[in-house]
């Protein structure tokens, strides 16, 4: 049904008819449009998407908080004032003050811990996503482009990793580390999480390598690296970005879960997941010590999921 797809066509281009039976054309077309790439089209859509705007504002806010926590509070997340132990009910009216959200069981400012906890969550989330994207794209691209036994081998390997339950695998790996820094957690999660991106990348690359523009580049004598980096990768990147942004929220949730289970970041680290774990013990006496960091995790995960969703809609309108 050719009529259904309304072509974005530049009409009445002067010059287009130069060769047709020698007709001289003086058509007054509309003002020439500007060059429009996929990204500028996507940006055009995103700017009008409230879902995107809300999530983007939240994410920027979280990123700033992770980078410069000092901007938000002067209190230290580690300063324990035992005098405030159990007495530190939230003082809701006192915005951004150390006692705004109350104190935890050890008398530390919950507000300060929420602010400083962002760094761990965001670092793990972004770090895992970057690592997974690079690893998955490379593996997926090699498998998809070269095919044959390379593909068979890499695909089976992907299947094996896919068979490992994500959290259980992470639990086992992290359990064997005594000193669990942010980097250890990132590596462990990336080690288990690359399969999804690899599959998406492989699928995209297989479709793209059969397309006529890749064949055309081959016919021109283009080298394999040129084909991969000029033609295949730029066209495969959109679905990869979509999967990656949506997965980011999941990694933040995974970090919180692992910290909650006691195998995430070490006890000394300030992290939302760890605070949720400790807050659980005071659920009856001081529920806010549990609820506040949980809400932060939820907001962050939700922001990234919404962001990913909006990006997907903008990059691939057909998926809607």
């Amino acid at each position, binding site marked *: 049904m050719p009529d259904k797809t309304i072509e974005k066509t*530049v009409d009445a*281009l002067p010059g287009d008819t130069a060769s*047709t039976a020698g007709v001289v054309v003086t058509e007054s077309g509309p003002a020439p449009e500007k060059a429009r790439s996929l990204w500028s089209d996507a940006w055009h859509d995103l700017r009008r998407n409230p879902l995107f705007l809300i999530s983007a504002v939240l994410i920027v806010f979280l990123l700033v908080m992770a980078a410069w926590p000092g901007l938000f509070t002067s209190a230290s997340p580690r300063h324990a004032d035992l005098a405030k132990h159990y007495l530190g009910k939230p003082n809701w009216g006192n915005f951004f003050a150390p006692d705004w959200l109350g104190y935890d069981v050890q008398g530390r400012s919950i507000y300060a811990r929420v602010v400083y906890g962002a760094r761990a969550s965001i670092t793990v989330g972004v770090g895992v996503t970057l690592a997974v994207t690079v690893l998955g794209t490379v593996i997926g691209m090699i498998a998809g482009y070269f095919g044959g036994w390379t593909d068979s081998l890499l695909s089976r390997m992907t299947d094996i990793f896919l068979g490992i339950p994500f959290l259980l695998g992470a639990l086992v790996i992290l359990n064997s580390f005594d000193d669990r820094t942010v980097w250890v957690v990132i590596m462990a999660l990336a080690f288990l999480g690359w399969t999804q991106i690899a599959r998406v990348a492989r699928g995209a690359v297989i479709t793209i390598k059969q397309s006529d523009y890749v064949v055309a580049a081959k016919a021109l004598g283009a080298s394999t690296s040129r084909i991969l980096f000029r033609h295949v990768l730029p066209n495969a990147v959109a679905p990869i970005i979509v999967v990656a942004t949506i997965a980011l929220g999941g990694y933040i949730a995974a970090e919180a879960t692992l910290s909650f289970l006691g195998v995430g970041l070490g006890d000394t680290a300030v992290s939302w997941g760890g605070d949720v774990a400790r807050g659980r013990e005071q659920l009856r006496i001081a529920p806010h010590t549990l609820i506040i960091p949980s809400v932060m995790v939820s907001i962050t995960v939700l922001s990234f999921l919404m962001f990913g969703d909006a990006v997907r809609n903008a990059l691939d309108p057909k998926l809607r």
Partner: protein
Amino acid sequence: MAELKKTDESMDATPNVAEVETVDAASEEEAVAAFDAPVSRGEPILQVRGLVKHFPLTQGILFKRQVGAVKAVDGISFDLYQGETLGIVGESGCGKSTVARLLMMLEKATAGEVFYKGQDITKLSGRALKAVRRNIQMVFQDPYTSLNPRMTVGDIIGETFEIHPEVAPKGDRRRKVQELLDVVGLNPEYINRYPHQFSGGQRQRIGIARGLALNPEIIICDEPVSALDVSVQAQVVNLMEKLQDEFNLSYLFIAHDLSIVRHISDRVGVMYLGKMAEIGTDTQIYDHPTHPYTQALLSAVPVPDPESREGRERIILTGDVPSPANPPSGCRFRTRCWKAQDKCAEEVPLLAVPERFKGSDSLAAHESACHFAEEKDVVHAA
């Protein structure tokens, strides 16, 4: 305006179509006879000899074993001369697109040779192959998939110079790209636009510009207009003819639309199930076909003229094209042929001038792979 006037007259004069055409054909025969003289053709620029491509059918996931082969192209030979257009027609699955990919060295031939100026290019690789690629370029069928959507028009055409830097020095490339856009009838100012900002016909012009960029001698056109709207097809066909004259190009024009092939081609080859059924000048093939498949194919073409249509004989073939993985023995067309006899199942007919026409100066005396070749005009109204 003047153009339309002229055609108005011819429209008014159409009622007696049949009469007009017989006159045409007679005068054409002389013209063609003169053109066919071997001396005027010179050396072939491309010689294809016994080209074969079998795609293996495999089973198994990690360890594959071959269980058969799709015989996409099964022994094809033809010549392409400097400055001429050789049309290749046939139905889907006849192997015509595989021929294009083989000539472009996009697939490795199972057997056979392709000589470009006397050199067998199927044996080349690396630098020597890249050098040959400069002279043999391709125009693709689908203008929507043949241009990288992430690159601007300038990058798409300019990439040819990045791959072959000796063709254009760096500072000169932008100007060259704009020149090419102008040559194919596009506004050079659109160099920074992306493919999706153009319509199908304009994109095909961009594809043609890319094919022309390296100044090739041969352009292989794989269904270059079949994805375009009727009113735009004519523009692109005219452009291709203009470019051929301007740059002395040789075209291998692969298409399923027999009318367009006749319009643009000097010689035409008809393919069926991986083999060449018949080959000759356009007049020989269209007005004096001797292979039953050519006759059926021609008679089935819908003609936008109900009156001449009603006077024509139509041969409606039964059944479908057999699978190229398991082609019939002997003549491949015999399963759908109304003339088939025992001989056709046993003996593969060779592509040669049929015995009965040998030495005759009739236009029916051209190569045809049929045991029972017989002239039959199916195009003109009875």
